[in-house]
């Protein structure tokens, strides 16, 4: 992937967002105003974001215009992204499932899946780890941290 093109897209989005912050008063609701005001610092920051994004975007556009050879730091390698997508997918499923089926039931599957994704093939050790670690975390959180991880709540 060519980072210069991504630069242009992201910078444009950031500039548009900053313009909204600069012009829209509805972004802060309620409260009592002080001398500084709620939107003073956000607007300063928005202004700075416009400046810096524009700098980055202009540099990238100029390079693209000149058809300059792409140099090393402008190449984004996408190798191995499939695995990352799967990992994030697992995490999101995990997040959705835990409130219903509980930490103790969901976690072993997640650990096993991540372990498999990372190339683990020692089935026994992986299974043992996937069962023991969640138990330790659950018990430890319960007794030492007084954090009560979600439990099975499907009646």
């Amino acid at each position, binding site marked *: 992937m060519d*980072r210069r093109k*991504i*630069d242009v897209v*992201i910078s444009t989005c950031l500039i548009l967002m900053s313009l909204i912050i600069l012009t829209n008063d509805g*972004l*802060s*609701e*309620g*409260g009592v105003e*002080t*001398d*500084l*005001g*709620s*939107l003073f*610092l*956000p607007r300063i*920051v*928005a202004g*700075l*974001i416009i400046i*810096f*994004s524009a*700098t*980055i975007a202009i*540099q990238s556009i100029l390079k693209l215009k000149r058809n300059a050879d792409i140099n090393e*730091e402008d190449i*984004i390698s996408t190798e*191995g992204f499939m*695995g*990352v997508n799967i*990992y*994030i997918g697992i*995490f*999101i499923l*995990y*997040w959705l499932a*835990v409130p219903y089926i509980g*930490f103790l039931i969901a*976690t072993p599957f*997640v*650990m096993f899946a*991540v*372990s498999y*994704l*990372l*190339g*683990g093939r020692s089935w026994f050790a*992986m299974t043992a*780890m*996937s069962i023991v*670690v969640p138990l330790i*975390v659950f018990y430890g*959180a319960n007794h030492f*941290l*007084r*954090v*009560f*991880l*979600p439990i099975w709540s499907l009646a």
Partner: protein
Amino acid sequence: MFDNIINGFSSILAIGPIIGIITGVFIGIIFGAIPGVSAIMAIAIILPLTFYVDPIIGITMLLAVYKAGIYGGSISAILINTPGAAASFLTALDGNALTKQGKAGKALDISLFSSVTGEMIATLVLIFVAAPISIVSLQAGPIEKVFLLLFAFTVIGSLAGDSIPRGLLSCCLGMLFAMVGLSTITGASRFTFGVTELMAGFTFTPMLIGILVMPEVINTIRNRTAPHHNLSLKNSKNRGDNRISFKEFRSVFKTILKSTGIGTFVGALPGLGSSTAAFMAYGEAKRTSKSPEKFGKGSVEGIAAAESANNAVCGSSMIPMLTLSIPGDDVAALLMGAFLIHGLTPGPLIFFEHTETIYAIFAGFLLTDLFLLVIAKSGFGFFTRVASLKRYFIFPCVTIFAFAGAFTAGQNMNDVLILIVFTIIGYGMRLVGLNPAVFIIGFILTPFLEQNLDQSIAIVGTDYHLFFASPFSWVFIALTLFFVYTSARSKKKRAKQI
């Protein structure tokens, strides 16, 4: 004074306090090392338990948890690049780079030695010169703090890396994210779009794990097809790579002293905290270093600077708390609660009313440093063995700890969503060359800046000269200009060399 300290030692050297300190150090190291669970949680939970024991035992134990917790974060930072606390993520930069070169032992050694040195010195400062320092720190009001914070922001220049606009943009994004939610000053809800959950802003712990810890997991997954031995923890055969020689320690000793000074100073000013101290010390060390190009790529000096500064804060945040009853950060606030509930009202009188107890606690501070040194050092072998397990054992566990840690922050699932979102944002930032470390600095410093700026404007009103009325302000303005000038010059110099 000296016989007070000797008396203090004689009352601390009993079975009860020593068991308390050892337990505290263990708990602190473990809590600090696990990403997502911080020492402050441990302290908040242990706090009520200490009501029932003698204050000497209870308070020294809490302090042991605090000190060991701040240190513990650096272990996981060095070995598997997952900083356990915000303050130790600079350690992760250099420490993990050393680990990848097979010099984990060296990194662990220097982080422990500089942590303990920083803490010791700050504790001695606390014992001997607490009163004068606290009077100086009172001179720093909101106006002076605005200038101090502006100075802290200049450190970003030296952390930003190759592209200055990208570094500054990362900082601005961090600042913007910090301003989401209900403003503590005006009570207005900003950028919440009607979502109640956003009123609290972005919870810090899950965000931190997402931005600083998870990218390491993702990197490992991207390289999952590479054979294990390419990625595993290497241990250099050369013994010199696995320890810190006296000569090396002496060569960074000046950095440690200076960083401890910065840490002690920042800690004595209420409200800035250990992360700020670590950033400032790291930036300063890089600016004055003979080999600034090594920073971020495995610099022993960098680890020494960050670790000694963030640990010095532990000792010196007690200064305003004990002498003026002003807690410097959230941990100090909890500890002050412990003092109050034990009937020891912090303030100058505490030294006369409770001489015995307070000096016993001071002696406990120093003893904690010793125990920390011994216990942590003897644990290195174990930590290294854990970290050299196959990656398909380590990273599923990191995933679970990240999940549980994010949940722990507020005991709800929304924080886990924040973790997922910031994992994606953090990794995306790395891909397009934005700097996550600088993003975090912006996020941490912005609330302080806004709060102090608002107060300054209210104080100044229309008398604008008040902005420049105090010598403190001038010192920080001068420092800021000096820092910007020298970093710009050294950057130019380096550019010429290439």
